[in-house]
């Protein structure tokens, strides 16, 4: 894989991260990260949707009339999102219930449409696929970090396993921080991640 293609995957992870640098897709990132499992499932779902919609739009790019391109993009994205939702409902029903409307709202996730407009409409299919995977992972990595921190300190568990209880932390007076489960705290955590990331990347 040459260096340009590698960049397509690596850049969105940190230097050009969709959440912390472009500040897109914040809504779902606050809503689904109270626990780790839904955060991971959401990250995978969004990655699949961005990657495949990028690929499909890139394959169709020369046949799409510019005047209806947004509509065509929306149709492709919604079809993929409905597919993902149906699959979640069939195979991981409990997670799909937790994610509730946020799976459907992937359609309106700015990252997806943003990548289609900015990249897939003008680039070759394989590059577009990589770009989609990269951006999906860039979104996903932030979700997983948030889900990890919030579930650990908010509920004292990870992936539903009561880790702090097993460690006996409650017996020595530790209490879960209820505030960290609320959406505002997720925003503050995103702010902290941006802070760390900027100071590291600029140094």
């Amino acid at each position, binding site marked *: 894989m040459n260096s340009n293609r590698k960049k397509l995957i690596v850049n969105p992870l940190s230097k050009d991260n969709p959440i912390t640098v472009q500040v897109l897709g914040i809504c779902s990132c606050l809503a689904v990260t*109270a626990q780790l499992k839904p955060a991971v499932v959401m990250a995978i779902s969004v990655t699949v949707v961005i990657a495949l919609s990028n690929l499909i739009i890139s394959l169709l790019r*020369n*046949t*799409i*009339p*510019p*005047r*209806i391109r947004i*509509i*065509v993009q929306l*149709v*492709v994205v919604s*079809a993929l999102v*409905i*597919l993902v939702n*149906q*699959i979640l*409902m*069939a*195979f991981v*029903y409990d997670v799909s*219930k937790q994610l*509730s*409307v946020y799976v459907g709202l992937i359609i309106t996730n700015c990252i997806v449409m943003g990548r289609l407009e900015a990249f897939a409409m003008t680039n070759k299919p394989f590059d577009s696929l990589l770009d989609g995977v990269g951006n999906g992972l860039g979104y996903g990595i932030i979700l997983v970090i948030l889900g990890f921190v919030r579930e650990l300190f908010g509920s004292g568990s990870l992936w539903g396993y009561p880790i702090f209880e097993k460690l006996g932390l409650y017996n020595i007076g530790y209490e879960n921080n209820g505030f960290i*489960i*609320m959406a505002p705290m997720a925003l503050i955590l995103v702010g902290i991640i941006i802070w760390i990331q900027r100071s590291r990347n600029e140094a």
Partner: protein
Amino acid sequence: MKYFSNKYMLIYSLALAAVVAALLSVVAMSLKSRQDANVRNEKMKMLLTTIGVECKTNDVQSVYDQYFKEELSIEKDDDDRPLTIYLYEKEGQHGYVIPTQGNGLWGKIYANIALADDLNTIVGITFSHESETPGLGAEITTEAFRNQFIGKKILDENGEVVSVAVVKHADAADLHQVDAISGGTMTSNGVSEMLINELQRYQHYITETLSDRKEATDEQ
């Protein structure tokens, strides 16, 4: 920029729509049975939780069959929904579970009420909701809220359904009151209303069953 005629655009959009529609229908139909099974399992799990049975295995059906013996469905003339009652037996105790539905603040809310054999004492309750606010109205599903209902009565001394009201500063000794959720007043009111409205639909059934039972014991 390449030129696209109106005719091209029209055919293009129609073709795209047709392909997408066909694809989605095929997927939806092939996954339907699995999804329905999930919904059924979820419902059975809820009923089991209501009577205090935690279902850890994936074989929900067999656990369900172990506890729930019968499902009654009584048609009523003046009602579009039939009365549904689940009969269960746990540790030798018989009891009833009544499913209810009502409106919360943002959408539908549901409750399963487990009654002891006297059709009066609440032994367990579970709530679910479609879109109540997390942290506020959605707190109705927490154990802290649900446990308040245990031991409360739905009938007054004359056997009339008075239900259990969800109110601010509830008197813990009062058999027909539980504490509301702070910040979730609208949802709490919704729960109160759902319980009284739905339980009243069962008034006739409850009165009949209890008087039949009384007659039977009197004859002995």
